[in-house]
């Protein structure tokens, strides 16, 4: 009997082992299936039905270019001043007349700029002075006497849009007699 006992025991043990192995494999399968299901879930999360605030996007390039723009202008093309003798002080040689009716306007988008003024009249009979009054940008130079050489009227206007009043002063001496000066005055934006 003792010799037969192992013979019957072996199949019983084998059956039990197979049952445990099957359970183990089933658990492994379920674990892997669960992980696979998670992966599939993540996959479909990528579709727009279940996720995705964002459906898609598109881009292009827009380039903005600003050219160098330099503009200067006067508010009126003609200024006329006449020394009539009215108000002349007896015994005084110098007579003056002033005009502040016009303005200078400019627009400059470059840095380090100034505005100069000059006249085309090579040999004026009388002196013509000019002063920039109350500039909205920049610094007014001291009153200048117009000549054919460009002279600073405004400095440090920088990148700006501005204006100032043009104050012309005609100066005549009694000893200079009478006559007419016709100036063509040119304002120029120049590098400072």
């Amino acid at each position, binding site marked *: 009997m003792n010799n037969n006992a192992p013979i019957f025991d072996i199949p019983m043990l084998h059956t039990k082992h197979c049952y445990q192995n099957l359970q183990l494999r089933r658990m492994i399968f379920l674990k892997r299936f669960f992980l696979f299901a998670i*992966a599939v879930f993540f996959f479909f999360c990528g579709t727009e039905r279940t996720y995705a605030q964002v459906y898609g996007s598109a881009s292009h390039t*827009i*380039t903005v270019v600003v*050219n160098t723009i330099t503009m200067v202008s006067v508010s009126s093309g003609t200024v006329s001043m006449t020394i009539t003798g009215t108000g002349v002080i007896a015994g005084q040689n110098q007579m003056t007349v002033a005009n502040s009716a016009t303005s200078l306007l400019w627009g400059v988008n470059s840095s380090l700029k100034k505005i100069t003024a000059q006249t085309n009249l090579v040999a004026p009979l009388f002196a013509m002075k000019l002063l920039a009054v109350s500039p909205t940008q920049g610094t007014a130079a001291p009153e200048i006497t117009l000549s054919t050489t460009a002279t600073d009227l405004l400095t440090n206007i920088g990148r700006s849009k501005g204006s100032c009043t043009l104050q012309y002063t005609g100066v005549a001496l009694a000893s200079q007699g009478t006559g007419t000066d016709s100036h063509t005055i040119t304002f120029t934006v120049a590098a400072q």
Partner: protein
Amino acid sequence: MTHFYSSYWLRWLCSSKVFFTLVSVFGAIMLTSPRIHAQVITVTGNKTLTITTAVIGSEPTPVVNSTSTLSYKRRSAIAKITVGTSCPSQSFTLKVLAVSPTAGTAAPEVTLANGMLATDFIINIPSGSTAAWRTATLRYTASATFAQGNSTEMGNDVHTVTYTLVVQ
């Protein structure tokens, strides 16, 4: 013994670490990158707006360009389109407006600024057939002040303008 795990393909499917990894990675990509979806929004080519003139007494004259078109598809839910831009060292002003969208409602004109949050551009795009393309004309307006300078000194403003179709 025959049971549900005995199928060769099912066993291969469930035991393949490679497959599981691929599915996981692809799922993660789908989650994080909507760009691999079918194209649902496009915009026509690059444009340049050049400001060249001014009227005395006024700032430089703005330039308008309406030659770009935004195309988009309706989705299965109500959607909207947002706009944003990237423009390092921006000096000038750029605005954009959706003109005559064939689906949805145009938002007010948007000022594009570097690093801006995505801003509503076309809203209330109704859900519906996703096949047909809908369009809107893009009206860009570039402007600058004299004080902002010029491109020679400041450089050009190069905007990468991005339109995004999202759930509303």
